[in-house]
């Protein structure tokens, strides 16, 4: 049973650029999938289709039983509560502390303070930032800020974690640490991970499923694959 299913998906932007063309993907629950490709190959568009930041022009996108294409604007939040999103630029709120940056998610869902606290502490412990609860984002390194972003994404225990170039702004060592965190979330929580990246080292080292895109088209889908873009499927 697929947890995420893309059927003949097209995304054509208003300016006529085709970002995704006829893509078919099935992802099972608990999978760890890399989406690779060069800049402007359609990785980000594909990721955005999953959390309904973009709507497909044609085709079906189904995430955890929700038909994303048909989802009304005022229902999108239901989908997003099932999906944790990790961004390349972290998207933290500068005026909130680390704790508040994670807690405000649950706060906005209407949780009680007594429910929020243990969940936030748990998420921050998982990413190794328990000691920095009271720090502000500008006092943290890039890697630490990315950890806060991950903690925020997993605090509500989502079924899927979607990562858009999470290591794009980080050096190799820090990237490795971040990947360790993401891998442990996949293994320990059983969270499905979908990660767009163009970091060859990471893909080659992790030996996970790899989906390759070129000019919006699917050119490869390998179990335990490595980073290769020249080989057509």
């Amino acid at each position, binding site marked *: 049973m697929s947890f995420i299913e893309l059927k003949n998906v097209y995304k054509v932007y208003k300016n006529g650029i085709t970002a995704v063309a006829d893509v078919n993907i099935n992802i099972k629950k608990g999978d760890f999938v890399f989406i690779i490709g060069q800049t402007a190959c359609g990785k980000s568009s594909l990721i955005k289709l999953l959390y309904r930041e973009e709507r497909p022009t044609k085709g079906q996108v189904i995430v955890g039983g929700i038909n994303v294409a048909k989802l009304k604007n005022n229902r999108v939040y239901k989908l997003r509560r099932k*999906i944790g999103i990790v961004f390349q630029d972290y998207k933290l709120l500068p005026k909130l502390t680390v704790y508040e940056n994670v807690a405000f998610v649950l706060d906005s869902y*209407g949780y*009680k303070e007594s429910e929020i606290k243990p969940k936030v502490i748990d998420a921050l412990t998982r990413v190794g930032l328990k000691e920095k609860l009271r720090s502000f984002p500008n006092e943290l390194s890039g890697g630490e800020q990315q950890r806060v972003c991950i903690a925020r994404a997993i605090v509500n225990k989502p079924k899927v974690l979607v990562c858009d170039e999470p290591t794009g702004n980080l050096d190799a060592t820090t990237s490795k640490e971040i990947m360790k965190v993401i891998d442990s979330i996949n293994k320990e929580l059983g969270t499905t991970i979908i990660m767009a990246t163009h970091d060859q080292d990471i893909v080659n080292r992790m030996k996970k499923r790899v989906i390759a895109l070129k000019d919006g088209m699917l050119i490869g889908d390998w179990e335990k694959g490595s980073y290769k873009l020249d080989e057509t499927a």
Partner: protein
Amino acid sequence: MRPLRILFRSISSAFKSVFRNLSLSIASLTCIIITLMIVSIAIIFSSNVNYSTKEIEKDLEMVVFVKSETTEEKVKEIESNLQVLPNVEQISYVDKETAKEDMKKENDTYKKIIEGWEEGENPLDSYFIVKVKNIEDMSETAATIKNLEGVDTVNYVEDLVEKMVSTFQIIRNVLIVTVVALIFVTAFLISNTIKITIYSRRNEIDIMRLVGTSNTVIKLPFIFEGLFLGAFGSILPILVTIYSYVFLYDKLGGVLFHPLLPMMQPYNFVFKVGLILLAIGSVVGMFGSYKAVRKYLKI
């Protein structure tokens, strides 16, 4: 419990936002205060004009003289003709003998003159006292009555009252138009304030949308912010209304320039006006922010 918690958090967040963007809030507040002051003046003025007009109407009557040679049957006919007129509220008939007696009682001069008349002599005419429903149509009604058969003349305090009432009504209409225009300007300004709040918090809003916050939770604080601006803005106009109306009422002795035009009793009336101002402020504030939220929160 959860919706209640969300409601309280929205309210506290809205409250903080009013103070966070203080200069903008003050600009909106000033506009609301000025608008509501004018609204208040308009309400007070038009209520008093209405009240005075009603009071005048209560006392205002026409005297319809019947031609001297008219028979009693003819008088009955006139009476029934008067009763069917749409603007006639009430009529009463005074025959010439009663008129003579009434006149005698009025003052000594009249009494002497009348006593000088020969026995049985009575040059006076019988008349009807007619009360009208609406003074604005008084001259029209008078003209109709004058054309009835057997009616000699129709007397009433013509020009003064009529002109005064129509002038008041023009002023009142001008005020209403001004108030409506001002309410729109205020709604627009509040909408702008909220727009800037939304703009300054767009990152936060973006992130909230991405992490699955529902649209209602995102929108509520802004709606409350508009409501607060409107409600806070009505406080000063309400106080000014209450104190200045009471002061004016005492100063003018309860009449509007002329004893013919009584003012409304201040108590209850000023509190009603205060409530109306609070309601207008809150509704305009909410409406303004609702517009901004719809337009600028593309969710």
